[in-house]
Each structure stands twice: as structure tokens, then as C-alpha cells.
């Protein structure tokens, strides 16, 4: 019997090509599109808003001659991803919902559906690779999405198939055209978060928490010494390192360097103040045998940021602290800290805070 694989199909080019490649490779392929949210709720009896992408995925499956199912994961996604997203903003952090979607929605909830149809394998259109049960960066470093995948259960890596991880985006598009997937080949890639239309995350927060939520209310813009220098219209509209919306009139360019939700304050400072020499993360998840204090790794604190050499200086339960060899700008609470060894993804966590902890300042650990 052919190996059965469930492919998560968004209706985009990457997952469509992934499905087509698996069909070519002789898998017994099942296409599944997750219905994750619907803003038609307040308009009863209206069709669903994510209909277009679902239709595209279905057309691709029809062309490939494989079954296609729509899986309603709205309530779990709302709880695990969207509620967390707005909660993080309300707490003055900058969330990264794609990580939680991968961890909980794709590689847990969808995996349960794969189990239900006896699919040993689960495939997505992510630009990442797997090898011997380990997760690797995508071959195309410009497109690499491993930064979003650190949270999945280590055992699941052995069941993942990532067919486009060996390809570059132009190769994927070319392949889509060669495979006759005209529906999706030239789709414009969206940089938006899927459930945040037009990139306006404040709208989502207002919808979920009410427009009078403190994170969208006026508050002071302050210098690091507490001097009030202006006003903002909601700290949830700010992230660490941001310049837009920051008052001018200073000798040097000013950036958001901290958000203090209790005082609703957005703290600004010069570029130097953004630099951190340490980072603390929680919800640490390992994709290899856990490393110990003193281990040398490379870390990435933002999607598409350059990896920086670092050393693990503290591990406590699911919390980890690293000292960075060189200062890194705009370490942002809520974003991910991902540990690499070259292309290998070692694990990751959510950034709790940056820190100035230079390695030299730390106590020497007895060997």
C-alpha cells in the first residue's frame, strides 16, 4: 500500500506545489484546507470569508485527482492563536502567531486529523527540511521558514514531509507552472498575518477585546528616565525598534525601546538603547536532546535576522538564558528565540526579555 500523506493546503503556491510533488512521488495524497477564522460572524448566513483560498486549494486537488477536505479548526485556532495574539499585545508584547499556529494548529490539531485517516505523514509548504528526525533550515536561505517551526513536538518531525524545502521560491513558481497549477502559480504572496486583514492588527484587538481596551487607549511616550515627551494612541500599535509614531525633535533618531503596559507607557531611546547582550526565553522546546549550560549555539531573535553566536548561561525548567557574543538590536518580548547549529534547528522559545548580560559578567560555572 502506498504511504498516505495529509497535505495542509492553504490555496497558495507553496502548499499546492508540495501536494503536486507528493503525487508525483507516488504518495497517496489527501489535501486538507484548514478553516481557521471567519469575520462573517456578525453577518448571519453570509458565505465564509476565507472562501477564495479554500476554492483555490480545491481546484488544485481536483486537478491532481486527489480528495480535498475542509477542516473547521476555527474554535481551536481562536483559542490557541488569536486569543493569545491579542493577549500578548495587551501585555505589551509583540506576538508571533505563525509559531503557535504551527505548534498547535498544524502540527497538533491537523496531525490528529491525519491520524484519523491513517496518514502516517503530514506535509506542508514550509521552506524547511527534515533529516533523520531533525529539522533543518530551508535550502533557500532568503525564504527559510524554520524560525516559525521550533515549537512542534520533536516526535512529529519524523512524520513531517516538506517538499519545497529543497527549492527556492522562483523554483517553486516555475514548478507550479510546469505542473499546470495556473490557479496558484502567480499568486501574490501576502506578508500579512492570515487573520489580520490589511495588516491592521489593532482592528483585531479591538474586535476581540473591545475598542476601549487599555492597549488601544492613549498613553504617555516617555524617555528612559521617565520624562514624558508625548502621547500615543495605544501601546499595542508599537513594537520594539519601531520609529513610526515616535515623536521627533531629538538630537538623534529615537526608537521604541520598551513598552510598559501597567503605565500604558511607550518608552523611547536612542539606537544604542536597543542593543542587548543577552536574551531570556520561556516555553523552551527542544528539537534535539536538550543542551546544557555552556553549550555554544547560534541564535536568531527575529524572522530573517542574521543568526548570532551565543552561549547558554542558564536553564531552568522551560526557561533559558543566553549570552550573545555581540550585541543584537531590538530583542522583542513575544517574538521567538530560535537556537541553531548551522542549518540544524536545535529548539526555541518565546522571548521574555532582552538583557545586557554579557558573558564576562556571569559567574563561572564549574566544569
Amino acid at each position, binding site marked *: 500500500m502506498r504511504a498516505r500523506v495529509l497535505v495542509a493546503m492553504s490555496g497558495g503556491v507553496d502548499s499546492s506545489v508540495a501536494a503536486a510533488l507528493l503525487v508525483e512521488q507516488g504518495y497517496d495524497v*489527501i489535501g486538507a484546507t484548514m*478553516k481557521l477564522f471567519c469575520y462573517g460572524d456578525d453577518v*448571519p*448566513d453570509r*458565505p*465564509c470569508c*476565507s*472562501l477564495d483560498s*479554500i476554492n483555490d486549494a*480545491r481546484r488544485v486537488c481536483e486537478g491532481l485527482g486527489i*480528495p480535498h*477536505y*475542509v*477542516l*473547521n479548526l476555527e474554535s481551536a485556532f481562536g483559542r490557541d492563536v488569536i486569543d493569545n495574539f491579542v493577549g500578548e499585545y495587551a501585555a505589551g508584547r509583540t506576538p508571533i502567531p505563525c509559531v503557535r499556529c504551527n505548534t498547535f494548529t498544524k502540527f497538533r490539531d491537523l496531525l*490528529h*486529523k491525519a*491520524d*484519523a*485517516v*491513517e496518514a502516517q505523514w503530514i506535509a506542508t509548504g514550509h521552506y524547511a527540511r527534515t533529516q533523520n528526525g531533525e529539522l533543518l533550515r530551508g535550502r533557500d536561505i532568503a525564504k527559510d521558514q524554520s524560525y516559525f517551526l521550533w515549537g512542534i513536538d520533536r516526535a512529529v518531525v519524523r512524520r513531517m514531509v516538506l517538499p519545497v524545502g529543497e527549492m527556492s521560491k522562483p523554483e517553486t513558481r516555475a514548478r507550479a507552472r510546469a505542473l499546470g497549477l495556473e490557479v496558484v502559480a502567480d499568486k501574490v504572496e501576502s506578508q500579512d498575518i492570515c487573520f489580520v486583514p490589511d495588516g491592521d492588527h489593532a482592528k483585531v484587538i479591538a474586535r476581540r477585546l473591545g475598542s476601549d481596551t487599555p492597549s488601544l487607549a492613549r498613553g504617555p511616550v516617555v524617555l528612559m528616565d521617565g520624562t514624558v515627551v508625548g502621547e500615543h494612541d495605544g501601546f499595542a500599535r508599537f513594537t520594539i525598534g519601531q520609529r513610526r509614531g515616535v515623536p521627533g525633535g531629538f538630537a538623534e533618531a529615537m526608537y521604541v525601546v520598551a513598552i510598559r503596559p501597567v503605565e500604558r507607557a511607550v518608552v523611547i531611546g536612542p539606537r544604542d538603547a536597543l542593543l542587548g547582550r543577552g536574551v531570556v526565553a520561556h516555553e523552551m522546546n527542544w528539537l534535539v536532546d536538550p543542551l546544557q549550560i555552556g553549550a555554544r549555539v547560534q541564535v536568531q531573535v527575529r524572522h530573517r535576522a542574521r543568526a548570532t553566536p551565543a552561549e547558554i548561561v542558564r536553564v531552568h525548567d522551560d526557561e533559558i538564558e543566553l549570552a550573545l557574543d555581540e550585541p543584537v538590536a531590538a530583542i522583542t518580548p513575544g517574538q521567538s528565540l530560535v537556537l541553531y547549529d548551522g542549518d540544524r534547528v536545535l529548539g526555541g522559545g518565546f522571548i521574555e526579555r532582552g538583557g545586557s548580560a554579557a558573558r564576562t559578567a556571569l559567574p563561572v560555572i564549574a566544569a
Partner: protein
Amino acid sequence: MPQPVYLDHAATTPVRREVVEAMEPFFGPRFGNPSSVHRWGREARAALDEARERVARCLGAKPDEICFTSGGTEADNLAVLGPLRSQQAKGRSAIVSTPIEHKAVLATVHHAVHHGATERMLDVTSDGVVDLSSLDRALDDAVAVCTVMWVNNEVGTIQPVPEIAERVKACGGVMHTDAVQAFGKLDFSLKNVPVDLLTISGHKIGAPKGAGAVFIRRGTKIDPMFHGGSQDRGRRPGTENVAAAVALARAAELAVEERETECARLKALREQLEEGLLSRIPDAVIHGRGAPRASHIVNISVPGTDSESLLMALDLAGVAASSGSACQSGSVTPSHVLSAMGVRPELSVAAVRMSLGALTTPEGIARVVELFPALIAKARRLSGVAG
């Protein structure tokens, strides 16, 4: 793969050979427009008139009381909004309905409410039957239309439509019933049932999709939905779909002729299915089982499973079933019918509807009686529920 088993007749049925044959001339030499004055027109008109008479006979109605539509949804829209608009002119603007109606009715009611009507929803028992005691509260001289389905499409329960109709008529309201799942299953004549409007749909009884009709009792005033020519006395402008009308007539006749034997056959198969499943899955729940039900629908929930996964697994094993209602995206959404019956969410998300019909055989039922419990056992192992 073993022979596929189609258990989704409440969704749609295969078009019958006799129906295809009856339609064929109208895709060929008898292509005329029934409104034309010439021979081609007359030939089409004759077929349309005859189809109307035949459908009327099947329902116990008069030919001019039959209005052909594009299907059940259009018929429901016309049957609710049509009389509402003319009743509103007389100061009646309340619609009485139930929370277990098909979306074609529910959404139409919502639409009317959005445009100034009021809705009064009747209570439903945990067995999925309208609670008649809630009717008293709902009926007064503000009621324009009452619309209650005859057989529920998700659980198969039979609603007390004749009793409701009597009481609605007594208070001066217009009574509509969606009989899409009832026609061909229940024995009735509109000579004895005092409804003013009744919906039937062709594709549930072996005619193609796009063929339906609404019975409009003489004297019932309705405003048309469409505006155009004077076809169907202006109630439904637009060149008539002659082939669909002929198809509906043929399928309706066959449904009435075969009703007694076919329903007895389906009832026996349904018992085979229900007993087979309940003996293998003792904690399974069959919704509406305590109420009178039409012979073709089984809606079953097994704790610790979810219908989405079961439907996929069934499909991949060659068995077609459905959950109650599918959203336009094709995703499975929690059933409004089961919610209205007070079914707890963990059972509601597990509901699988199997509906029997022309393609159902004892062998197919036997296969499902083996397969379904095996899939249930697997699903429960995965979800860690004992059983």
C-alpha cells in the same frame, strides 16, 4: 476497494432512468418556449401544462396551485417572503418558525427580520419535534406567516404540521411547510392538510437539481420575488424550465407510486443499520429516535469522536455520509438543529447523518455496520476515550 456505499440521499439522489427518458425530448425536438404562439411553443406548453397537472395530482392539489421553481430554496423564499409582503400591508408582520428549519427557511426569516418583520421561534423537544404548547404563545392576529418543515433534514423527525396548520389558519395566518424531505416519505393529500404553501424539491426524489415547486393554495396572496414576464400567472416570471418541470412530474409520480413499498424497504434497512450500530457501539446516541421519524434518516453521535474525522475516514473507505449542515466552504459546522434539541456540544460535534434511498442495499448496510464501529474504535483509541 469494496463497492462504494452512498448513504447521503437526504443531500441528493441519482436521477432516475425514467426521469432522464421523460426529459430527453425537451433537450431535442421539443425545445420550444411555452409562451410562443407557434407549434413549437404549443408543444412545450402542452408538456408544461401536463407536468403541472401531474404534480398537482401527486399532492392532491389543483394544477393552478403548482408553481415551478428552481428548487427548494427558491420555493421556500417565495413561500415565506411572498405572503409576508402582502400580509404586511394588512398590518401582520410576525413570522412563526422553528430553530430546526433548513437554512433556506431560516436565512429567509432572518432576512425578513432585517427588513422589519419580527420572528417568533417555537420550542423544540429534545427529540427534535416542535413543542405544540409553545404555539399558543406564538399565535395572535399579528402573525403573517408560519413556516414549519414537515420532516427535518438532519434527524428525520416528523413535525405535527397538520395540527400546526389548523391553529395558524384559525388565527388568520398563512401556513407554509417545507416538505422537501417529507414528499415521497409521508402519505398526505393537500385536500386534507390545511397548509397554504408547501415546498418540494426534485433532486431529493430522482429528478435533477434545479427542479422544484411550491404549492400555493388558491386565494393565497403572494408578492412575486422576480419581476418580468407573466409566466406562471406572474408569480414566477422567467421562461419556464420545461425539462425540469417534466422531470419533477415524472419523479413525483414514481415517488408516490412506490412510496409504500420503498418506505417499508428503507425502514427495514434503517432498523438493520441502527440495531447493528447500537449493538456494536452501546453508548452511541441516535438523535430523534424517540419521536416519529421518516424512514430514510439516521443521525448518530458517538462520544469521544468528531464528525469531521469520521466523514473523511468514511469517504476514504468509500462510504458517503454527511454531518447535518455543511457551510459553503465545505467545512463541518456544529448543527443548529442538534443545538436546538439541547444536544451537548461533545455529542453534537460527533454527529454523522446517514440517509438511505434508492441506492441502499442490505449488503451496503452490512458493510457500514462493520466499518463504522471499526472507525469509531480507532478514533477513540486516538482520542484516548475508553470504549
